[in-house]
């Protein structure tokens, strides 16, 4: 077994796993653990992250880690926290539950809501790659409008996904979660600072990280960090922190870029640049515009009104 000193300096999510070249989620998960340190226990949902890091008999995790099911990471983590406390073994341990966007905003919502509501001392991390990428790029509740997925294909009667991204951070805020933040892999220091800040706070914490997906989004693998940056600079993924119901920090892009700069490099949006795509592009611009108005102050639901 590696000493704790060694584990402090190495990657707690080790290289050598089978994630895709340029996987945004692998970058984010490594940064989360780097910030959290070795005294954590991780409950991981089913998904890419679980599959490519733990193909038996190998494991990339240098921390105690469990995968149970797709939709129960929050509940498994809750059971750990309560039990360790009851046994007097909780001191100095941090518990992280993590899942993708499907495991969080769709199938896992019940368990997450229970964990938030009961106030467990857990950091929940959602790695949002905007679809069920592990099973071949199907649509999730966090797939953005217009995106082509294998279950929201463009066609004679379709311009890709019809729905908006479910506003998970605000759903967490509405539960009274004391610390809610968003982050992405283009800003690793900001991401790690948020993990560390979250772990200092008692109670449930929610961190929502945008993680570009090379095969699911359809772009060249060296563009992962660049796309994450463009998502922020186009205002399509706002970066902010909410503390005790108050938005305390919003990261404003120095220079706002047009949404096309973010959409064009991705094959999932290619059809929007064909005849007829303009209507969807217009909607996406509206979302970006609405996100750009996010300001510090009491948190309330933001984003454009639902489509007609």
């Amino acid at each position, binding site marked *: *077994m590696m000493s704790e000193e060694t*584990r402090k300096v190495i990657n707690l999510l080790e290289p050598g796993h089978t994630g895709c070249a340029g996987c945004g989620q692998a970058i984010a998960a490594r940064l989360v653990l780097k910030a959290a340190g*070795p*005294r*954590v*226990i991780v*409950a*991981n949902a089913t998904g890419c992250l*679980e*599959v490519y890091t*733990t*193909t*038996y*008999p190998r*494991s990339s*995790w*240098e*921390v*105690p*880690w*469990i*995968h*149970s*099911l797709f*939709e*129960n990471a929050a*509940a*498994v*983590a*809750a*059971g*750990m*926290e*309560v*039990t*360790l*406390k*009851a*046994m007097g*073994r909780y001191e100095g*341990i941090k518990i992280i539950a993590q899942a993708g966007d499907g495991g969080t905003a769709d199938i896992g919502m*019940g*368990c997450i*809501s*229970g964990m938030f*509501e*009961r106030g467990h001392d857990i950091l929940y991390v959602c790695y949002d790659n905007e679809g069920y990428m592990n099973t071949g790029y199907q649509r999730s509740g966090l797939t953005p409008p217009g995106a082509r997925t294998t279950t929201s294909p463009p066609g004679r009667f379709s311009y890709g996904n019809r729905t908006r991204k479910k506003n998970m951070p605000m759903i967490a805020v509405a539960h009274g979660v004391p610390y809610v933040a968003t982050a992405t892999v283009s800003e690793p220091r900001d991401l790690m600072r948020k993990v560390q800040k979250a772990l200092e706070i008692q109670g449930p914490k929610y961190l929502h990280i945008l993680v570009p997906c090379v095969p699911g989004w359809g772009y060249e693998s060296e563009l992962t960090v660049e796309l994450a940056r463009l998502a922020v600079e186009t205002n399509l993924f706002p970066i902010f922190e909410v503390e005790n119901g108050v938005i305390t920090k919003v990261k404003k892009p120095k220079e706002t870029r047009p949404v096309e700069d973010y959409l064009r490099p991705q094959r999932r949006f290619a059809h929007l640049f064909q005849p007829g795509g303009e209507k969807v592009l217009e909607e996406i611009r509206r979302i970006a515009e609405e996100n750009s108005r996010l300001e510090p102050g009491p948190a309330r639901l933001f984003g454009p009104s639902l489509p007609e």
Partner: protein
Amino acid sequence: MRAILEGSKAVAEAVRMCRPNLVCAYPITPQTHIVEELSHMVADGRLEAGFVLAESEFGAASIVLGGSVVGGRAYTATSSQGLLLMVEVIFNIAGLRLPVVMTCANRAVSAPINIWNDQQDAVSIRDSGWIQLYVEDNQEAVDTHIQAFRIAEELMIPVMVCMDGYVLTHTMEPVDIPEQEEVDRFLPPYRPKYRLDPDDPFTMGAMVGPDAYMETRYHVHMDMMEARSVIQRVADDYAQAFGRHHGGLVETYDLEGADVVLVSMGSLLGTMREAVDELRKEGLKVGILKVRCFRPFPKEAIHDALQGIEVVGVIEKDISLGLEGTLCSEMRAAFCGEESPNISSFIMGLGGRDITVEEIKQVARDLASNPACRVEFRGLKEELLRGDEG
């Protein structure tokens, strides 16, 4: 301490004395009184355990899973729809080899929705890798819960104690509640063989492909087979410590020279004993085989108990729709390749319909006069079948 207690309260007392580190459940009839009583114990400080009121049975099962992986003794209870909602986690707990103990207050399964007793819920998840022990009365419920933690922790296999909803959970009976020191002697603190701990990190729940998956299932199966001797031994140890034995895998009653043997699981055995006593007085030689352990299935014990018996009737409160009662099918497997008694399936008491002493006696009489293998529903209302009503 001997007291007149409702079954649910008696079970809660037994669970309390097993010193769980985590109790977590979601309310569902007829399991509710167990969880309510445990809630009172926590509120009064009589039970010092982590206590979580989950957002669903799925959540409750996942939470006890989490408690168990960090080395805690974890307990939950449910019924019917709740058990079915847990199913994905139930299989997962068994596959991860976590010694969770659960009470299933047996209840019928929807549709039509019905809150009364039968055993369709637990029987339907027989293949999940949980040990299933069915109890006959509230004393056996108390004693079996205490045994369950020891069995589970020795084998790292979860145990479900199945007790008939209402018939046991809501019924007052005199029950002997053991002393805490006696329970402590019988059930030492849980020493997990593995647990998630930052001081010794390891990975649980890895992705296992075709190259190794079968071997993991084989291990669980072999340990389940081994569990039969452990269940028997723990029941014997319990008898030594507490002076009460309810059978290990099976129990027999009046099998000596029996022309007909009736078989069942759970609280119906009490009614059956009465029926058999009367039948014996009336001159019909009928015996009873009580199946206490349904998983692992005690093939050898059943085979041995029924040596020389020619006619068997399995009365059960479940059905594998399109076949017959599940226990009946499995009884037949005990005689594979050998001359088998005629084993018939009698489906009775579904959705809480009463099963009377007279109905049981009639099953035995009918089998004595016609031993042919068959599947029959008993206690059906002809007028409802004809559609005369409603």
